[in-house]
């Protein structure tokens, strides 16, 4: 096995003397996409900032490629680790290309002169992130999704083994979130860099991450493939509350209602599946058992409802649900 990009030993993080996450020991290897999950305030950002040396650890050790973080000055560290933070950069009069080229900062002379190799790397990264059409655009004229790609491009231009991203999917619309995570996953498989990403988008993390670090509200960190954590039931212990629980079959969060009335559904296929979903939302549990009191059947694209001796017909699931709810 290759050398660990990052090795954390009994690391405890926090501000001043307030402990946030405790005694974490982990190793990160090349080409891993690691998502850090946890409720608000669990210490995701604190952990990331401590690894990035923006915060001092309360105790414990951090090694980059075998070198202790305290022995690396800021200049050397910048060649092991790059970051994408939530800090909003308000810059005018700087093109995307110029901004990405700032990632070459640790490698240029005091005049900041870009060598041909530096320029090639910047072009290559811009191409990889599919932002070539934006490269001469001003940084202030980008959408949030484009801006996030540009931020990642700058970090990649820094050419480091480890890239830390603090909530890169926040503020993005759903398609952009999916795109961004897929992009990170792609980059992991084509590059030897590893990505350490904190996020609140659990479903995306579960589908794209190679590995998940789940921090619970007590500050303990659970490490494993997403599937490991699901099977261990960790998500339930961390996220379950009175209103929601984590469905281990479907890997989604659902409303927990316990007083479900049962109703028979005589239907099959896709329409059955969506009807059951709708019924579940309004507090009914579908069964296959014969039920003379409550039964829904689909005949000629009409929903036939028999309930408490009444027989009704509905054209749409919406109308059916509205009736059942108001009953």
């Amino acid at each position, binding site marked *: 096995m290759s050398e660990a990009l990052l090795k954390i030993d009994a690391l405890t993080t926090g501000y001043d003397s307030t402990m946030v996450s405790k005694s974490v020991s982990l190793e990160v290897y090349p080409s891993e996409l690691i998502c850090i999950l946890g409720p608000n305030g669990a210490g995701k950002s604190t952990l990331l900032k401590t690894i*990035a*040396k*923006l915060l001092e650890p309360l105790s414990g050790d951090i090694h980059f490629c075998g070198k202790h973080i305290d022995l690396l*000055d*800021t*200049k*050397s*560290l*910048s*060649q092991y*680790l*790059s*970051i994408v*933070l939530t*800090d909003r*950069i*308000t*810059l*005018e*009069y*700087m*093109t995307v290309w*110029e901004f990405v080229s*700032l*990632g070459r*900062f*640790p490698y*240029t002379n*005091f*005049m*900041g002169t870009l060598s041909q190799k530096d320029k090639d790397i910047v072009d290559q990264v811009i191409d990889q992130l599919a932002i070539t059409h934006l490269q*001469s655009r001003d940084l*202030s*004229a980008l959408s949030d999704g484009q801006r996030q790609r540009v931020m990642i491009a700058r970090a990649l231009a*820094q050419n480091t083994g480890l890239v830390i991203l603090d909530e890169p999917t926040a503020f993005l619309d759903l398609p952009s979130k999916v795109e961004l995570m897929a992009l990170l996953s792609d980059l992991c498989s084509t590059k030897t860099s590893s990505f350490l990403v904190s996020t609140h988008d659990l479903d995306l993390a579960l589908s794209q991450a190679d590995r998940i670090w789940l921090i619970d509200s007590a500050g303990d960190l659970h490490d494993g493939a997403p599937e490991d954590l699901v099977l261990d039931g960790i998500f339930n212990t961390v996220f379950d509350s009175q209103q929601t629980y984590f469905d281990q079959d479907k890997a989604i969060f659902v409303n927990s209602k316990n007083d479900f009335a049962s109703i028979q559904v005589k239907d099959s296929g896709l329409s059955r599946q969506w009807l059951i979903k709708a019924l579940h939302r309004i507090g009914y549990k579908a069964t296959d058992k014969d039920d003379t009191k409550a039964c829904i059947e689909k005949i000629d694209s009409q929903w036939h409802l028999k309930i408490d001796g009444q027989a009704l017909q509905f054209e749409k699931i919406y109308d059916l649900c509205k009736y059942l709810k108001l009953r």
Partner: protein
Amino acid sequence: MKSKTPRFLFLLCIFLGLFVLNISLGSVSFSFSDTFSAIIHQQSDDKTLELILFSFRIPKTFTAILAGASLAVAGLLMQSLFQNPLAGPFVLGISSGASLGVSICILLSSLYGLTAFRSKPTLLLASSLGSFLVFLAILACANRIKNNTTLLILGLMFGYISGGFVSVLFYFSQTEELNTFMQWSYGSFSRLTPEYYHLFAIPILLCLFASLLISKYLNAFLLGENYARSLGVSIKKFRLIIVFISASLAGIVTSFCGPISFIGVSAPHIARYVFHTSNHFVLVPASIIIGASVAILADIISGMPGTGYTLPLNSITSIIGAPILIWVILSKKKAL
């Protein structure tokens, strides 16, 4: 990317034009051809012209050039350090320190009847001492604090303290002493006498050169402290260097010319607007030329050519500086 050279040449032409205008115009105006030949031959048949030109107008214009360039670069450094477009050379409280020094000095002269305390060298010493003490205080803070904003707040507080002392001075003083203070606070490029010129010019030139040398790091500061650090910039060290250079420039100019407002805030904006860049390798030299030009322009206008009157320099820099800034900001909004 468009070449910056034509724009630099354009600015240089404006600068040279203003330079010639400033040494030709004044309470006595000379023709351009006379002025030119006098400069080229280092002498003139017209002895009045020679005297006015070489012992008054040319030194004054060079003072304006150095002062304008210093304030512009000091303002640029502060705007980049604080990532705040409103920052200027005096946000750290340097000019407040100088006013405090001068006001205490005048107050003492009024209380003890020491008219010597109101002489030019004493006032120079007082304002230098005042800005130097604030300068030391700021450096001490810059070395300790974690957050840049703290520096801004400290600067503001120095301003209040000195404002308080100035009010006390006003309360106790006679018209004459008030006049001395007001005269000082109007600012002027003609106070500097030849024997002090090296004290003024050499440190300024060194600081301007140093600003060019740290341009790469200033570019990193544009991304904010966290990103700058992740790019390998030692934040504490460079914050100290930036504050040192900026406060030195502002302090030297204030000591010798008084608190000259607005050039420092507006010149960097004009530079960004003209060159459409945030790159300090362009902005530092551009701010130097623009700051110098604006200072000369303000000097020409305050001299009120042909009238024999002289207006306070400070009011002119505000009156011409603010509209320039308004124009730059509004036309930028349009462009977006």
